[in-house]
C-alpha cells in the first residue's frame, strides 16, 4: 500500500520532469521512422532491437544512478517517516524502472500497433523484443541503482562508473572477445566464448536477438558447439538463467546497501 503511494508520487514527479516523456518519444519517433521507411517486415523489428540494445543499457545505468541522486531529498524525507526501508527501496526502484519500461513499451508498441506489425510480422518476434526491452530496463536500472548507492556521496564517480560501465559492456568487452578470438582462434575456444558472452548482459540480450532474427547466419557457422548450443533448449535456458542472475544480483546488493546506508 505504502509502496504504491510512493510509486504514484514518483511517477507524477517523473512525468512532470518531462524527461521520461522525451525518452518515450525517442522510441516512438525511431520506431515510427524504422517502420515507415523500412517496411513492416522483420527489418524494422531488427532495427528497433538494435536501438534497444544500445539505448536501454545506457539510459538505464546512467539514469538509475542519477535518479538516486536527484531523489535524495525525497528519500530523506521518507526515511524519517514510519516506513520500512525495504518498502522505500522498492518504491524508489519501481518508481523509476516501471516508467522507463512503460515509456519503452509504449514508444515501441504504438507504432507497431498503428502500422499493423502485429499482423504483418511474427508475434513471437514482437513479444521477444518487448519482453527483452522490459527485462533490460529493469536489469540496467538496477545496475545504475547499485552504482548510485555505492557512490552515493560522490556523484561524479557514480555517473562516471555508470558511463564507463556501459562503454565496457557495450563496446570494450566485445573488443576483448574479438581480440581473444583472433589470438586464440586456432584453439577450440567456442565454449569459453559462449561463457564470456553469458557474462555480459548486453551480449546475452544481443545473442537472444540473433537467435530470433539471424538464425540463418548463425546456422551457417561451421562449428558444432554453437549449433548445438543455439539449437537446443539448453542454450535458451542457460541464457535466460544468466539474465535472471544479472537481474537479481545488482538489485539484491542495492537493497542491502540501501538498508545499511546512513543518510
Amino acid at each position, binding site marked *: 500500500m505504502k509502496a504504491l503511494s510512493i510509486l504514484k508520487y514518483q511517477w507524477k514527479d517523473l512525468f512532470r520532469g518531462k524527461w521520461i516523456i522525451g525518452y518515450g518519444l525517442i522510441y516512438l519517433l525511431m520506431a515510427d521512422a524504422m517502420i515507415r521507411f523500412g517496411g513492416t*517486415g*522483420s*527489418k524494422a523489428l*531488427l532495427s528497433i532491437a*538494435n536501438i534497444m*540494445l*544500445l539505448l536501454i543499457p545506457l539510459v538505464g545505468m546512467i539514469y538509475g544512478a542519477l535518479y538516486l541522486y536527484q531523489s535524495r531529498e525525497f528519500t530523506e524525507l521518507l526515511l524519517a517517516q514510519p516506513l520500512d526501508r525495504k518498502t522505500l527501496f522498492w518504491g524508489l526502484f519501481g518508481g523509476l524502472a516501471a516508467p522507463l519500461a512503460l515509456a519503452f513499451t509504449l514508444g515501441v508498441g504504438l507504432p507497431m500497433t498503428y502500422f499493423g506489425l502485429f499482423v504483418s510480422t511474427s508475434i513471437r518476434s514482437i513479444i521477444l523484443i518487448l519482453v527483452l526491452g522490459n527485462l533490460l530496463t529493469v536489469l540496467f536500472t538496477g545496475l545504475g541503482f547499485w552504482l548510485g548507492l555505492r557512490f552515493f556521496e560522490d556523484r561524479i564517480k557514480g555517473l562516471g562508473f555508470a558511463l564507463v560501465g556501459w562503454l565496457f559492456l*557495450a*563496446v*570494450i568487452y*566485445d*573488443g576483448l*572477445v*574479438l581480440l581473444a*578470438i*583472433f589470438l586464440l*582462434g586456432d584453439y577450440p*575456444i*567456442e565454449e569459453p*566464448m*559462449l561463457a564470456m*558472452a553469458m557474462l555480459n548482459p548486453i*551480449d546475452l540480450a*544481443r*545473442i537472444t*536477438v*540473433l537467435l530470433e532474427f*539471424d*538464425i*540463418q*547466419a*548463425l*546456422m*551457417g*557457422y*561451421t*562449428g558444432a558447439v*554453437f*549449433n548445438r548450443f543455439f539449437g537446443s533448449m539448453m542454450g535458451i535456458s542457460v541464457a535466460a538463467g544468466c539474465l535472471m542472475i544479472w537481474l537479481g544480483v545488482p538489485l539484491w546488493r542495492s537493497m542491502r546497501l540501501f538498508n545499511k546506508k546512513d543518510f
Partner: protein
Amino acid sequence: MRANKKILGLITLFVMLWQTGLARQVTVSPNGPIDSIKQGIIETNPGDTLLIKEGTYREYDIRVDKPMTIIGEGKVVIDGERQGFVIVITADNVTLKNVTVKHASTSFMEDYAGILIKETDNTVIENTTLVDNFFGIYLAQSSNALIKNNHITASGERETKSGNGIHLWYSKDVTIQDNYVKGHRDGLYFEFVEGASISGNLSEENIRYGIHFMYSDNCRYEENTFRNNGGGVAVMYTENVKILNNRFEDNWGASAYGMLLKEINRSRIEGNLFINNSVGLYIESTNNNEFTSNTFKQNGWGIELMANSTDNLFTNNNFLDNAFEVSTNSRQSFNEFNHNYWSQYEGYDLDRDGTGDVPHHPVRLFSILVEKQPQSLLLLRSLLIDILDAAEKIMPVLTPETLVDSEPQMTKIP
C-alpha cells in the same frame, strides 16, 4: 448356322484388322484372366495399350521392351517388395501413367530404381506416384523424355541408404515438369545431360541437394522451388544454363546454400528468389555469367563470392535484410556490381534520379573477420562491430575496393 459362323468369322476378322490398325488394348486385373503386369506385357503387341485395373501387384523387374502405353485405372500399386528394379523401360515410345510404384531395392552396388528408363527415345512418365524407392525415376542414355506431374517421395535418413528422386545420366532433350520430390538423397540429379528443360518442380527436404547437376550444358531451369534441402542446390562444371525465376528457400546449415555454383560459365541466373538461407548464392571458380533481377532476402549471407570467380555481372538485383550482403575471401575482385538495390545502403540521392550519389560497398569488414575467424560470428550486431564497419567504410583497409556498386538504387527494383 453356317451363315452365323460366317458372320462371326467376318466380325472377328474386322475386329482383328481394326485392332492392328488402331492398336489393341490388353487389360490386367487382379481377378481377370491376366492378373500380372508381366503377363500383360507379353500379351501386348508393340503400340498396344496395357490397361491395369485397380489393385496391388507384387512384381519386380517388369521389363517394358516394346513401344506401348501403360495406364493405371483407379488406384494401381506396383510393389517391388525390395527385390530389385520395379519397372524397367528399354523400348522407345513408351508411355506410363497413373500408377504407384513402391519399394525398389536399396543397394550399395546397383542403383535400383522405381522406374528405370534405359537407352530409349520418347518416353513419357506422367501422373505416377513413387513411394520409398531407392532411386525414383532413373533415366540413362535416353532422349526426348517427358517426366511430368509425378509425386516422388522417400523417407531416406542417410545418404548411403537413399538414392536420387529423378536421376538423369547421359540424356538429351528431356523435359521435367511439375514434379514433386521429397526425402531422397538429391531431389534431382543430372550428370552429362544436354538441353533439358526443368520447370515447375518442387523439391524439398532431400538429404543432400534439391537439385544437383554437373556437366550438363544448355539446360534451362525455370520456376522450380527448392526448399529446405540438406545442402540446398549445387550446380557444377556446366556451361550455358539458364536458371530463371526459381525459388531457393529455407536451406540452413554450415554448408547449406540456396544455390552453390562451381565452374559455371556463360550462364544466365535471372529473376530467382533466394530467401531464408544460410548462404543465398555461393560462387566459386565461376566466370562470365549474368546475375540479373534476382532477390536475396533474409539470408545469412546474400552472396558468397570467391575470388577465383571473375567477369560476372550482377545487376538489377535486390538485396533485402541479409545479415551480410556480399562476402568474399580476397581484397581483389574482378566482377561487376551495378545498379542493384541494397537495403543496407546508407547513402543519399540529392539529385533525385533514383540512383544513390555515393557508391555502395556491400562487403562489410565484419564479413572479412568472420571469413578469417568464423567464431567471431557470435559478435554479429554488436555495437563494436558497427563501429568497426563504419570506420572501414570511411577508410577501407581490408575490404575489396573494387567490389563496389557505383549505381546503388534508392528503391527496390520491381
